[in-house]
């Protein structure tokens, strides 16, 4: 149906290619802007820093755990490591870019549903 990406599952080169070929959303095309401004300006760092800190350390600990247990080659772990690069980039669209990097970039429907669940990362193959 749709050609596969053609590189090894979860490899860095493959994921960099996926991120390049994914379509830009309307927000990225039109530029970022605030369409709803809260009535009162609050210190969002005070509000969210500790939450972000604990989640980032949790990701680091998860990757350490995968390495210690020899499970870092799993395509989901590889996908996670590759999209982390987005966090250092500007543009105020990091969440969108992470989601794009974890998504199936193909466009055609697959022949038959392989099951009902989703894994959270694209394995790098497109079903025929």
């Amino acid at each position, binding site marked *: 149906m749709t050609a596969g990406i053609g590189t090894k599952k979860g490899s860095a080169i493959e994921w960099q290619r996926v991120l390049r070929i994914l379509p830009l959303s309307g927000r990225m095309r039109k530029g970022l802007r*605030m*369409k709803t401004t809260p009535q009162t300006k609050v210190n969002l760092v005070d509000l969210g820093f500790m939450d972000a800190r604990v989640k980032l350390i949790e990701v680091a600990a998860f990757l350490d755990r995968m390495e210690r247990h020899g499970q870092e080659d799993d395509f989901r772990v590889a996908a996670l490591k590759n999209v982390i690069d987005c966090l250092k980039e500007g543009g105020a669209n990091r969440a969108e870019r992470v989601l*794009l990097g974890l998504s199936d*970039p193909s466009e055609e429907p*697959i022949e038959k*549903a392989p099951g*009902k669940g*989703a894994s*959270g*990362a694209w394995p790098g193959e497109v079903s025929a």
Partner: protein
Amino acid sequence: MKFIEPHGHMVSRVTDDYQNMAMAGCVAICEPSFWAGYDRRNEHGFYDYFRQLTEVEPARAANYGIRHYCWMCINPKEAEDLGLANAVLDLIPEFLDKPNVLGIGEIGLNKNSKNELIVLEKHIQLAEDHDQLILVHTPHLEDKLKGTQLIVDAIKNHSKIDPSRVIIDHVEEHSIATVKDAGMWAGITLYPESKTTPNRAVDMLEVYGSDQIWMNAACDWGQSDPMSVPKTMQVMKKRGWSEEQIQKIVLQNPVSFMKQTPKFDLDI
């Protein structure tokens, strides 16, 4: 503050949830048809489920002063079996006349398969033939980006369907623009893990604006929280949103969308 839960699978929730939601200010719950967690063997299972949605849940909600509305369909998770799907599609028109049925939903895709797309097309045609509102489920996780585009394209193929009478649910940061650009409503689902957190939901509201958008818990038999809308209202308040700004998202917007059918007769 009052709020509407525009997407809650109350058949899966205990009565305490109705009570807690009522105490938090919930005035109405809208319940799309969904997958029960197992595949039903035949259309008779769906017939009984549709009776539950149109007879039992409205009475259960009324005990707590909550209005209950629902949507009819066979969920995309059961769409791979075309024989079953067609038999269920034949049942739906009988229920479209029930007083609490708002439209066709939650239709959509799950794994983006050909059969799922065929059944989606049949649901869209059913909505067009019966002049119904449409509520759409978008796929989970890695399948959402592709599925959202396939769904939007399928609906746009029906020129008689007014996009402002369609809500595409479970949008996230990478799919919301596709929906908004198509002139359709967007639903943000608040889940502990697999969809959107309260802070991410508020981020999307700030970036994409407060028009043609709602938030829901989509609480069901899985990990989900029927109180996630009021909890997100607290987050909005902490982030400096005014009461009027919050009420637009959690009350006025759901009313605006669902008032497009005269069956949504809630008096706010």
